[in-house]
């Protein structure tokens, strides 16, 4: 039997070309297949399976971000390369001197201290987690850790952050579509997958979020992020002609074949489980230990991780400028029997590829051997600008690097945005809002995630400063995590996330704006410097070929530009995962997720000892609300209780927000702030309740004192509106004058004080609308996910 097949495409018609793509799970469309055909016509030969697979992996949506980089016709306006016109553009125009490497490598890199930089990346692993939650999520975190190991010349991971979106845990069994797993099973599998991988790697998982919404029942989202630290002189890589290609870490098997192309299409009941990779964290930890030693000795010129597309992508990227020769039969296999193309595209885990100068080969191999990590020479960077693959004596692929990387046709897509009009809920504000507050606290998205958080080691490496659980009994919900990566320095990083898909159901523009605001707010709330915040975008959407879906992405991207510019927060890296759809076999319809944008933020903190937490600290302190409350109930949790979305999505006033962040940061630096919490889901009501039960002290406030726009004239809206850029702050009375003076031009309101053991809230007419024991509120918040 021949080990390599040639495919007959030179004379194929359109139908046949599509058939070849479909049969081979190549996910290439007609225009792309035609480009391939034209290339081989020029070469006057048929392609091998290895060649077609290489092209398919490199051109996959997963690797190439074709929709974002294509030409989009948005409501009649032409956008040439959405990414360049929005996200990249903001970074370029902001031009921060502390941004070291943006959008070029595996992760974004910013300055940390005189000698070091920090890198941050968030990835998704959605499709695999839908089919095999434990393995999918584990390899998700494993993959993003390798991004950090493979950025520049390698960074040491110091922190993980995870954000998950699931269907409701009580989703009726009988409503599940054929081939999907129940949200509860996905939830538990994902949590343990991330736990077992992250804990074994010895990286603290300090921050995260979990969103529950029916829209994620068939397609859960699993975002995994990692922060790493690296010396200044290791931020860049450069392959030299003649460097030896060394593969380090795991062996290659059949797991994860077609991961990149598979994640670029909708799932259905017949999706192959073999597309999911199998992880082994200890192999990755060994690989990390070995590579950081080799890095510090300067033993290689470049490295990257094997992620989507396996060697095909890793070697393909590294060899873009030089070309490479790879001997596939030398690759160590988990078991025999893999075809050359399978070896080349397998996404087996825990593999890194190095470019090692020949004179340093024996020294690097000695390190790898001592650390018990398998290292294999698989080829060399050739200087031919061609990708040449061999299996034994047979040449199984010979492609021009230029064609692989630039030969794909660009996409032309249409985006069409239509304003949506939802039902505007019509009901009067209840006389007593205690019941509503308890119910909002019990909403799964709001409720305590302690069950998850405690299963993650959030303190390994010894640098944890602001923990995910805080307050009098270590169980209140923190805003951002703070850690110091160097144990002999007080410099640290704050990390947070912003996500709210319900706003996107109203308008993705304001969802993106709100998410950036939330991520920034969280950093500012713990004392992070708003002038030093870098952000990451992570788009998870449905099918970009549907004009209304693409319009959502366009609108979110436009907001990314506008708000990043307004806040001075550059994007340093990003990711998109599209085609999060599931085929309902009974109707043939495709069910898509709600368009979801995760914004992750990182800020360097000069001194972590300036940090504040969100728990009330003492009785008799003054409570302030910073920012204005608007009639912005659209997408709120309060409306969710009534099964409504509404229309008035929270907006962002960039100019005011920027001022608020700067002033609040100053107040925290001056030591005026005892506790601080941002208002997010559930608005002011939830913020006050959480601060109270975390601190073990009640609070007494009056809603009439809350600064609000003219159309907010009912108690429930003041309490539960989710307007952006708002914080609740606790101050000692002696600092009031200083604080008010600092905030002169900004709307702040002194709404009451701490004390007692109840949350007492007086309405606009000074009537008591909430009088709830803090322990009762806490129970409402803890109960739903205590033992899920």
């Amino acid at each position, binding site marked *: 039997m021949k080990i390599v097949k040639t495919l007959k495409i030179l004379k194929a018609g359109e139908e046949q070309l599509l058939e070849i793509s479909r049969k081979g799970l190549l996910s290439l469309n007609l225009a792309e297949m035609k480009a391939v055909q034209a290339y081989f016509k020029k070469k006057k030969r048929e392609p091998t399976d290895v060649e077609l697979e290489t092209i398919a992996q490199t051109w996959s949506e997963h690797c190439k971000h074709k929709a974002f980089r294509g030409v989009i016709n948005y409501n009649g306006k032409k956008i040439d390369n959405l990414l360049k016109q929005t996200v990249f553009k903001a970074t370029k125009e902001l031009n921060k001197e502390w941004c070291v490497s943006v959008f070029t490598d595996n992760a974004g890199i910013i300055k940390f201290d005189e000698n070091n930089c920090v890198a941050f990346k968030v990835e998704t692993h959605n499709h695999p987690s839908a089919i095999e939650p434990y393995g999918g999520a584990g390899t998700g975190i494993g993959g993003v850790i390798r991004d950090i190991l493979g950025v520049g010349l390698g960074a040491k991971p110091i922190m993980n952050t995870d954000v998950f979106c699931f269907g409701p845990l009580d989703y009726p069994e009988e409503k599940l579509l054929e081939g999907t797993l129940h949200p509860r099973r996905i939830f538990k599998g994902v949590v343990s997958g991330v736990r077992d991988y992250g804990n074994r790697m010895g990286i603290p998982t300090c921050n995260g979020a979990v969103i529950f919404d029916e829209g994620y029942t068939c397609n859960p989202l699993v975002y995994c992020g990692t922060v790493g630290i690296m010396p200044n002189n290791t931020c860049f890589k450069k392959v030299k002609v003649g460097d030896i290609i060394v593969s380090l870490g795991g062996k290659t098997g059949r797991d994860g074949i077609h991961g990149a192309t598979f994640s670029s299409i909708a799932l259905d009941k017949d999706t192959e489980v073999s597309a999911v990779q199998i992880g082994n964290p200890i192999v990755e*930890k060994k690989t990390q230990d070995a590579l950081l030693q080799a890095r510090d000795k300067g033993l290689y010129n470049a490295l990257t991780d094997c992620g989507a597309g396996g060697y095909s992508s890793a070697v393909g990227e590294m060899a873009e400028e030089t070309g490479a020769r790879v001997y596939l039969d030398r690759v160590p296999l988990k078991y025999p029997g893999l075809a050359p193309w399978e070896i080349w595209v397998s996404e087996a885990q825990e593999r890194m590829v190095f470019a090692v100068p020949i004179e340093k080969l024996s020294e690097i191999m000695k390190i790898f051997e*001592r650390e018990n990590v398998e290292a294999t020479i698989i080829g060399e960077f050739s200087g031919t600008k061609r990708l040449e693959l061999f299996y034994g004596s047979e040449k199984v692929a010979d492609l021009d690097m230029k064609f692989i990387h630039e030969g794909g046709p660009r996409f032309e897509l249409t985006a069409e945005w239509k304003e949506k009009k939802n039902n505007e809920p019509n009901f009067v504000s209840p006389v007593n809002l205690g019941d509503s507050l308890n119910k909002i606290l019990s909403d799964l998205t709001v409720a305590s995630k302690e069950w998850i958080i405690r299963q993650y080691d959030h303190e390994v490496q*010894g640098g944890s400063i602001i923990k995910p659980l805080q307050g009098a009994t270590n169980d209140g919900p923190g805003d951002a995590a703070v850690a110091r990566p160097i144990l002999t320095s007080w410099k640290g990083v704050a990390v947070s996330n912003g996500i709210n898909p319900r706003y996107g159901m109203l308008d993705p523009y304001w969802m993106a704006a709100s998410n950036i605001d939330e991520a920034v707010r969280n950093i500012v709330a713990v004392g992070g410097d708003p002038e030093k915040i870098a952000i990451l975008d992570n788009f998870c959407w449905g099918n970009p070929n549907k004009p209304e879906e693409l319009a959502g992405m366009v609108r979110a991207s436009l907001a990314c530009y506008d708000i990043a510019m307004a806040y001075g927060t550059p994007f340093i890296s990003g990711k998109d995962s599209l085609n999060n759809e599931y085929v309902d076999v009974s109707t043939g319809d495709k069910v898509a997720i709600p368009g979801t944008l995760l914004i992750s933020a990182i800020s360097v903190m000069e001194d972590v000892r300036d940090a504040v937490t969100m728990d009330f600290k003492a009785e008799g302190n003054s409570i302030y609300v910073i920012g204005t409350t608007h009639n912005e109930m659209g997408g709120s949790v309060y409306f969710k209780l009534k099964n409504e979305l509404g229309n008035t999505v929270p907006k962002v006033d960039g100019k005011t927000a920027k001022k608020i962040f700067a002033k609040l940061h100053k107040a925290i630096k001056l030591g005026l702030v005892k506790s601080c919490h941002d208002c997010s889901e559930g608005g002011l009501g939830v913020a006050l309740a959480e601060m109270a039960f975390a601190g073990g002290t009640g609070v007494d406030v009056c809603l009439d004192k809350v600064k609000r726009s003219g159309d907010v004239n009912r108690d429930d809206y003041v309490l539960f509106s989710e307007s952006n850029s708002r914080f609740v702050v606790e101050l000692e009375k002696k600092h009031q004058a200083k604080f008010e003076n600092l905030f002169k031009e900004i709307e702040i309101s002194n709404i009451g004080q701490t004390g007692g053991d109840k949350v007492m809230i007086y309405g606009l007419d000074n009537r008591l609308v909430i009088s709830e024991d803090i322990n009762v509120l806490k129970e409402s918040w803890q109960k739903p996910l205590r033992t899920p």
Partner: protein
Amino acid sequence: MSKKAKVIVIRTAGTNCDYETVTAFELCGAEVDLVHINQLLRKEVDILNYQILAIPGGFSYGDDVASGKILANEIQYRLIDTISRFVSERRLIIGICNGFQVLVKTGLLPGIDGIDKKEYTTLFNNDSGKFEDRWCYLKSTSNRCIFTRGLKEQIYLPVAHGEGKFITLDEKTLEYLKKNDMIVFKYVNKDGDIAGYPANPNGSAEAIAGICNPGGNILGLMPHPERFVTRYNHPRWTREKLPEEGDGLALFRNAVEFAKKKLQ
């Protein structure tokens, strides 16, 4: 100038609390080498050049077979002669979390027969059935253990493990530990009393969190003293009056001081 105490911190595949363990010893003025087990097995490094040996936390070899077992076997079958000499010369050994599991599986703890031929004690799956990270109050209960001499009666440290339930082979072993003052730490609640979950985070017998050998020079414990070396590690440092130094540091300092005295 007095000589510095020399500490060897052993690591292998899956070790992950090495950096903070090294730092804790360094903060106490020790000279610390982080050494891969392969360097010992190949005799590139000699344990006897050190006064203190530490096995940090993590998931050595992924905790395959059983937690700590493979590293324990490497020590037991290939290094035991040197280690025996190390111990008999009253040099110090500390095993934290996974390191404690290793010490128990090598027979260095409880060390009833010198180096035990059988496993008198073990660390089993938490009663909660899952890995948990939480802070625990610990009562210091031994006068014998060198690491905890002069330690305040109650300290606060985080645990982070899935297999930390301390159990003994039989009642006799437990009696032996008690009689010989080998129980070093017990989990207690804030008021200093033995209590159920979560004060005792894993269901350990008699709430035992750490033990030492009869000589008091080998300590194994599940909680992580290296994670509480400054007040800013404490989960409530933003709300409580606390001393600058974290509770965990005293254990490292005691060891370093003891070793230094022996050097003079």
